[in-house]
């Protein structure tokens, strides 16, 4: 996962790209492999959840998501985790600048 977190005033803007095929059911059927896509993603800063998303197969391939939140300072660590339909999970960290 590529994470960029930038502090602007008291708002932290985060841009994240997850590497994932996001294969919907129809396309998976054609290919003869199981459908798989990110179903749940969170971001945590100072052990508080600042972003939470439940998602379906209709996010784009390698989805890029932007979101904002308040309450972090420069130098804080942001930790993001996703889990997909097949149960794979990836966690990445970045520093808020």
């Amino acid at each position, binding site marked *: 996962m590529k994470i960029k977190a930038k502090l602007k005033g008291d*708002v932290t803007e985060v841009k994240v790209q997850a590497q994932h*095929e*996001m*294969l*919907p*059911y*129809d*396309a*998976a059927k*054609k*290919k003869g492999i199981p459908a798989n896509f990110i*179903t*749940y993603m*969170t971001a945590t800063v100072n052990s*508080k*959840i*600042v*972003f*939470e*998303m*439940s*998602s*379906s*197969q*209709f*996010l*784009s*391939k390698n*989805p*890029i*998501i*932007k*979101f*904002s*939140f*308040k*309450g972090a300072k420069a130098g804080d660590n942001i930790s993001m985790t996703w889990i997909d339909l097949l149960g794979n999970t990836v966690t990445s960290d970045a520093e808020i600048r």
Partner: protein
Amino acid sequence: MQRRKFLSLGAIAAAAMVPASLVAEDFRATKPDVWTSHTVDDSIKKLYGSNTFIAEGIKLTAPDVASNGGAIPVDVSSDIPAKSVAIFQDANPESAVAVFTVREGGIVDYSLKIKMRTSGTITVVLEGRDGKLYSATKTLDVALGGCEG
């Protein structure tokens, strides 16, 4: 040993008493029907239990014509204090795209890219902290459908 056991029990009890607002909610687990619904109305009803909206207060931006249906940029922002924000569309076999949980003091300002097979309408529903539902829609043309993978 007795005391240690007692203390560890206390720690478990404390962990179980975390306020509900801090507990994560995976809507795929708690509301599985939302994700298999074939119409936007049905999906929203299963998520929020109502189909009555106030059609204001949300800024929804998407192109009028999307050249690539595999990655349509969608921006959602609002100043309404929100509990959650959900995105739906009516071009694909199922309707739900994503549900965001907004924390206390959270900001509703999301950008993401979604897939649409054909031209259709994107619907965004915001669940306010006042218990009301707000919505916005955007109809767009999709030049090249994006669900074939």
